[in-house]
């Protein structure tokens, strides 16, 4: 989780683009954390020193650790400890992938990791939430909803995206999560949940993402538009079904209306009077805009 939010931090600082982030996430699956990267993380070497050793490696047929010891930058015990950590460490995969793909140098990685850990513009509570990786806390720390059930809604949606669609969803941290405008050139699957207050739930995405996620959820090709629509609405219906059961266990009763599809606009006035929110969730398969209103 630390990894993912380090990625968001890089995105917010415009050091990488959304496209870069998607490539990084793909690359991460096969990324092996290098000893130099770990040495930076552990404070044993600087980014400049790691880059020097990498340069040396091009002319000498020796391992990174051996050269670092020869240069007196680390000792044998430290190398062994780094090798041990190499097999345990997963927090640095994103940074490693960003370097491997040429989006960052080791020097930049060193600088940005320190910045991120010291002060990334996050409050202590926000940083703590990011470090522990608690989805609900992250949503609570970053988004100011007027309806308290929305916190649980977003956390559950992230878990359901991981369960059914994509291993690496991440929320784009924005200054405001207020709903801005009707999604143009997009497909929106939506469903109303009724209790004392009507809740609008919608997931909007571009046509390409819509088709890709539909096939992923259906676990079959969905060339037929109607089948793609049925797949995405079923995902929303399933998610809302689980949400409704969770709420019912807390004595909050919701009735679900059948889900529907709207193209290039939202349905009517969304039939709500309270706050309207838009949360952009990126996945390696494309962006999902979650729209919540009550």
């Amino acid at each position, binding site marked *: 989780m630390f990894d993912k939010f380090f990625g968001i931090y890089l995105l917010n600082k415009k050091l990488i683009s959304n496209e870069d982030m998607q490539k990084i996430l793909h690359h991460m699956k096969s990324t092996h954390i290098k000893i130099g990267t770990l040495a930076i993380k552990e404070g044993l070497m600087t980014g400049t020193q790691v880059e020097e050793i990498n340069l040396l490696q091009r002319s000498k047929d020796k391992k990174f650790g051996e050269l670092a010891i020869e240069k007196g930058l680390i000792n044998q015990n430290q190398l062994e400890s780094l090798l041990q950590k190499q097999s345990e460490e997963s927090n640095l995969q994103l940074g490693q992938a960003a370097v491997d793909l040429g989006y960052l140098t080791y020097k930049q990685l060193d600088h940005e990791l320190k910045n991120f850990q010291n002060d990334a513009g996050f409050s202590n509570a926000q940083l703590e939430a990011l470090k522990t990786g608690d989805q609900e806390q992250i949503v609570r720390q970053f988004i100011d909803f007027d309806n308290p059930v929305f916190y649980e809604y977003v956390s559950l949606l992230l878990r359901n995206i991981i369960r059914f669609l994509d291993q690496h969803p991440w929320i784009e941290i924005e200054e405001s999560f207020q709903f801005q405008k009707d999604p143009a050139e997009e497909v929106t699957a939506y469903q109303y949940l009724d209790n004392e207050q009507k809740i609008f739930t919608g997931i909007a995405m571009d046509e390409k993402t819509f088709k890709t996620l539909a096939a992923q959820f259906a676990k079959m090709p969905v060339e037929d538009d109607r*089948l793609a629509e049925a797949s995405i609405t079923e995902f929303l*219906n399933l998610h809302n079904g689980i949400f409704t059961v969770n709420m019912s*266990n807390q004595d909050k009763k919701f009735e679900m209306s059948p889900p529907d599809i709207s193209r290039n606009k939202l349905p009517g006035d969304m039939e709500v009077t309270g706050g309207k929110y838009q949360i952009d969730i990126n996945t390696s398969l494309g962006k999902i805009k979650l729209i919540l209103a009550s």
Partner: protein
Amino acid sequence: MSEDVKILVCDDSMLIRTQVQNVLTGAGGYEIFHTTNGEEAVKTYQKEKPDVVLLDLVMPEVGGLECLKQLKEVDKEARVIIMTSSGTKENLQEALKLGAIDFIQKPMDEDKLLSMLEKFKGR
């Protein structure tokens, strides 16, 4: 040789209907009828007299619970399995009270669905 088990699937989602169709056709031994709403389901039930009904709870107009009630009025022996993603305690209790024989949680586990339906073969 025993006859195919007649299954009536009632779900407004084309995805669920397609998935059930694929699983049952793959397994063999089933004749499948599809309906997309409660009203249609009751009419098809009367015409085809299926062995089992797979019924969704959340559907437009005539919802699952109302449809179950009507099916039981038509045939009090009707065997109805509820397919649901929103199995709240109240909904499930209500469905049981109305005479549903079982539930299957969405997304459906293929093996579970087949083992549920297998027992109707050779009846």
